């Protein structure tokens, strides 16, 4: 039931129709280049962009809608969440503005309205309102080359592998987004390396939220454990002090370092 998008870089002609369709659908304002933007064309007013590469290659950048999104896992109030349908959506009414999602996103997607006094996080929401009603996202509807298509993620994967098989040598034998960080709903087929869509380090196939899971699961134990250690220490030291009082040796333990319990 998880939907997704497959973008075939070899088919894209860079017409930017997806970009303008996105702006129109989500009523995004015209934007001017500001110094706080990255140079990938995404901004609070641009949820998708076309990155131009050598030899007339155009790569569409948008939210990858990870299967196990880091942004949703780190949001302290759960303003980001992964819907059953596949889209990672944002609830601005919950948001605090901590920008942890922007820090945690392995693809550097979420953008901030830095110029507003009441700023929100902005990113592609896979046209959640449209796909809920059985429609396609705006960007895939307008693509004149069918370079970016919408469908069930599993079917898109089949199509991708089929294209690689049928056109030997045309593509790099890899579907971007199939396994990285546990898989993403937005997939890419390409004949050029798409490593630039994420940070320089390789991402690995382990979902990012699992990296914090161990630490978060041990929180209750650390809490109770520290309390136990402190109470135990206190009990031992107090008992020893009482003993020393009985033996009329005041302050015997006061000027010594804390010692392991040897009683």
């Amino acid at each position: 039931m998880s939907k997704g998008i497959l973008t075939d870089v070899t088919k894209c002609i860079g017409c930017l129709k997806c970009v303008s369709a996105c702006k129109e659908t989500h009523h995004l304002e015209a934007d001017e280049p500001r110094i706080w933007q990255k140079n990938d064309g995404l901004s609070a007013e641009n949820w998708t962009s076309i990155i131009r590469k050598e030899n007339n290659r155009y790569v569409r950048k948008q939210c990858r809608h990870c299967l196990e999104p880091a942004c949703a896992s780190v949001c302290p109030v759960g303003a980001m969440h992964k819907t059953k349908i596949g889209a990672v959506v944002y609830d601005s009414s919950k948001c605090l503005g901590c920008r942890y999602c922007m820090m945690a996103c392995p693809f550097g997607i979420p953008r901030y309205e830095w110029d507003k006094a009441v700023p929100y996080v902005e990113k592609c929401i896979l046209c959640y309102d449209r796909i809920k009603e059985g429609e396609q996202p705006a960007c895939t509807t307008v693509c004149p080359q069918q370079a970016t298509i919408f469908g069930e993620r599993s079917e898109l994967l089949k199509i991708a592998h089929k294209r690689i098989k049928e056109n030997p040598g045309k593509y790099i034998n890899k579907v971007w987004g199939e396994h990285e960080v546990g898989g993403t709903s937005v997939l890419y087929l390409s004949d050029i390396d798409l490593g630039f869509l994420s940070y320089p380090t390789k991402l690995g196939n382990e979902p990012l939220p699992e990296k914090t899971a161990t630490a978060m699961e041990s929180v209750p134990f650390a809490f109770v454990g520290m309390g136990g250690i402190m109470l135990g220490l206190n009990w031992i030291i107090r008992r020893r002090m009482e003993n020393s009082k009985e033996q009329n040796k005041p302050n015997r333990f006061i000027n010594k370092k804390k010692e392991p319990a040897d009683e």
Partner: protein
Amino acid sequence: MNRVRNTKLILWLITGFAAAIALNRFIFGLGVTTNLTDRTPWGLWIGFDVMGGVALAAGGFVITAIFYMMKREEFHPLVKPAVLTAFLGYVAVVLSLLVDLGLPWNIWHMIIFWNPHSPLFEVGWCVMLYTTVLLLEFSPVPLESFSRYARIRNFLMKFRFVFVLLGIMLSTLHQSSLGSLFLIMPFKVYPLWYSYILPIQFFISAVALGLMMVAFESLVSHWLFKRKPETDLVAKLCKTAVWVLATYFLVKMIDIIAEGKFGLIFNGSWESNLFIVEVLISTIIPAMMFAVPKFAGKSKVQWIGSFMVIFGVVLNRIDVGGLTMLWATGGSYTPLWTEIFISLGIVSFAALVFLFAIEHFHVWDLQPKEPDALPHTLPSFDYSSKTWLGTPDVSGLTKYSLAFVISFAVGMFLMPGKHLHSKGIENFKVTHASGFDTLYVNGNRDDQLVKFPHEAHIAWLRTHKNPLVGDGNFNNMLSMGTDSCSACHHLSIPGEKLSNCSECHTRMYTQVDFFNHNWHTSSDGAKLRCDDCHKPGMNRSAQSAKHCTSCHTTYKFAINKKSSVENYYILSYTDALHKLCVSCHMKESKIVKDKPNLALCSTCHKTQLPENLTAGLNWKISLPHFNNVILPDVKPEIADKDKK
């Protein structure tokens, strides 16, 4: 007591200045008052104020653990000031969070919307609870001065042990969870700092920092109030710190070696140098200094050593919190002066409250002995002479409030909104097209020019029977015979010459006001009086003015009768040129086959700049930030309104 007075004056000055900046930050937003960007969404306020602040406040839980749990009663003189510092530290953290958060008024959402997977959720809760616990722990001290609250005080004193225990447990959690915050970013944090045991490293270093913070604070406040320093107690703290620092160092090194990252330490990059400096300052040098029994008891060594640990560990928090992410994000971030002053201001505010508490409440076992140190006797009114018998303390208060107000005003003066707004590239100016027979259009100066064969276009218009005939306007223009300039240039406007597009469409992405008011009123221009255009007795606005066509009868430019203010705006440069070229070529491509595919941007935007044209032209003012950006077609409002 000049030392205290001068310090306070400086603190008040900084606080006032920071208050003005903070006000501006809430009016204008984060973008213009900070150097934060989409690449570096967390900056100094998180790295230093929050991460560093929480670590600096670790003194509270460390000293209470030593005093209440381990029953080391000789540390009693240090407990109350340390708890006070911890409480103020957390207040400072919350204040800086309020400045840093985009929507600070939603901070309470953490109480009702839960996401237990998030380390930040846990940190937030712990900070909230621990600040409350610290308040309960400390409040018996100020309550002592008010006898009517004795009951509350007794109640709080009864549960003090519970509060202390809770405080230690909560601190353990969030000191370590600050490290867990970064576990999810293995792709960003430089490998030397990233570790699966970051939470443990953070906790151990926080204990070391806590010990040193108690020591340093005792040294500073005794210097400030010219008291005899508690050298023996501080020496004990320093000796304990040796063990903690050694543990920290071992844990860190074993982790690095086990992960096979040892080679990275000496690879010569700036990160590796930073790592070496950080470890030297935060652990190795101070631990070695304190390990020598002779040195640990010396006041100077204590000053230097404790400061080094504090500086080093806070540097570690800043490193993990963003400084070492720059290699991955490719951005550069230096805090703007506003960010630095807000950080300083919050620290100054906390320091002022600390001094207030020391002077008014029984924080120290021995109150400051100098009479000036307790300057809270208010002036009394003498009825017989009808004068206020003032004390020097009032002049001090006046001085402080004046300092605050003046520095606030200076702060406001330095932050004019207009100046701040221009930080974004608004009103992006267009460069003229250059060349002769062939024009090179490089409006946005990104060096991806459009080569426009001007002569060829003219020749084509002259010789060919224009396929565009049929369109009323063009028909009109072509009737001018061989001179078909008007097919592209607005020759229908009175006084129009063959002018560059960029003369009117002066802005790259924004619409431009077309109506030149100054020219209409100037003696060189139309020499009009106000009443010539604006109806007398009405507000002089665009609405009350006569329509352009009432004078410019030959004016065929598309202005409909329902004129509104928007009509005075013309398209941006990008839109004007795209519409001019694309609309013509689109129509043409239906008739003539094998024409360039205009849907491909690169059909036009790919020409390299010819070398003979580079010399003497300003085209090389390219903006490195935006070289890869392709900006979408901006839809101006005017087009939408016309459609309606």
